[in-house]
């Protein structure tokens, strides 16, 4: 495992996760469908998980991989709450486009 990391280099892993993270960020900022926004948030979190595992191998230290379990569990809980909110919005509004959510202004 360490060999592969030596061949590829930790920098490339960082670049890959930064690119994935930015894809997620732009997804959150520009897409209007709530489900796709949720998926973009998941991409952000998973980009970080990838980097955790890469760093964990780089440092020869298991803590990073354990942290990934924490962050996966948290992400699952978070998205469950998000979907519940989305369901109640769909019941009231009949759509999941977040552009419809602009009653609060001032």
């Amino acid at each position, binding site marked *: 495992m360490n060999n592969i990391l030596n061949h590829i280099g930790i920098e490339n892993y960082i670049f890959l996760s930064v690119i994935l993270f930015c894809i997620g960020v732009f997804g959150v900022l520009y897409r209007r469908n709530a489900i796709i926004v949720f998926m973009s948030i998941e991409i952000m979190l998973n980009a*970080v998980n990838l*980097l955790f595992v890469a760093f964990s191998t780089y*440092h020869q*230290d298991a803590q990073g991989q354990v942290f990934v379990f924490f962050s996966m569990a948290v992400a699952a809980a*978070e998205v469950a709450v998000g979907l519940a*909110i989305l369901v109640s919005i769909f019941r*009231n509004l009949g759509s999941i486009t977040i552009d419809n959510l602009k*009653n609060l202004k*001032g």
Partner: protein
Amino acid sequence: MNTLIAIIGLGVLCLLFEIFNLRKAIVPITILGLLGVLGLTISEFNSTESYYNNMIVVSKFSSTFSSLFIVLTIFLVALGHNFYENHQSKISDYIAIKIFLLAGAVAMVSFGNLAMFFLGIEVLSIALYILAASDRMNLKSNEAGMKYFLMGSFASGIILFGICLIYGAMGSFDVTEISELSQSAELPVWFPIGIVLVTIGLLFKVAAVPFHFWAPDVYEGSPALTTALMSTLAKVVAMATLYKLLSVMNADVSESFKMVVVIISMASMTVGNIMALRQTNVKRMLAFSGVSHAGFMLMTLLSLSTSAGSLLYYASAYSLSGIAAFCVILYVCKNRDNEDVVNFHGLGKTNPLLAAILTAALLSMAGIPIFAGFFAKLVLFNQTIQAGYLALVIVAVVNSIISVGYYFKLILAMYTKEPNEERKGTPVIIYAVAVIAIVLNIALGLYPSFVLDLLA
């Protein structure tokens, strides 16, 4: 540690009450339980211990702030008795979520490992998403919950990325190891980037200026009690965590970072106050006032080693007056679909006590003597001048003067306008909470050294 276990036990107990059909007793028992936890926290005040391989470190800082959070939660749970009286069947859920939120808050100030920090912040945020959207038939509440969820999980992603880069640079999640390593060797460039990302994520939660845009919408849309929770407990927790994180991880913050803090602090105060001037909705107004108070509290980051006491004092003064103000808002705006200033017209005649309490709370926020808000600002400004940031203090003083403008708009509306309708009797619990909160606030104002010496 015992605090955290006891709080979680209490939360589980709340859920069990539902099964045994004890909904009527849930609020009093929870308050008694929280008072017990408060006593437990105070009893281990002077101990400094770490548990579970440094996952949790109990120190003076963590136990004082935990006590403040527990006191605030007691107030919020007590108000819940009246606020949720039409949702009796779900009251144990609402109360249990608040208790779990408190557990997250305590974990956030007593972490010794970044994993605990992340879990704490997530437990707090997820509980808040649920509470923000808890009025599920109301579209405004849905919208507030959705906006808060999107912003919050975005911020969590950024915090997670920051933690990851810190781990990459240091090879450990333990904050003491990180702070030792950060002083010795040549650091990879990832470490400062990680710190900056975590700081940005927490500034989202504090609602400081470039990251404040969600606050007014979410505060306005959420149920009033949740708004009270967000503007007092959640803000104070995030601020204390940011303070602890920076002071634990890199004791000497670089000059350029301090410059950024100065600019964010100035911008938060100014933007918050100026936007608050033109609000007619009281919740929105308090949201912007919260943004400006976040700016004031950020000033403590400029003298990290000495300002823990003044942060605690400012946080207590601000959150106690916030609780008192929201008690009155809960009373006035019950069964109304908005919280405009019009609703407060003539409150001075129809309910003089509550009007006086709201006046006192707003005066404390504006920083008028006798109330704790004044001494909090005094101590904070004094400290910031000693740290050598005169310009920042001048901006802060000017901002305190501006803030009087919108606080007095509400006070004048209560005393000079005619009441537009009769109000029915007030529940005792609202009186009780409001009076206790404001009395505590005045007591803090009369004896500032009591709190300031705790963390000196």
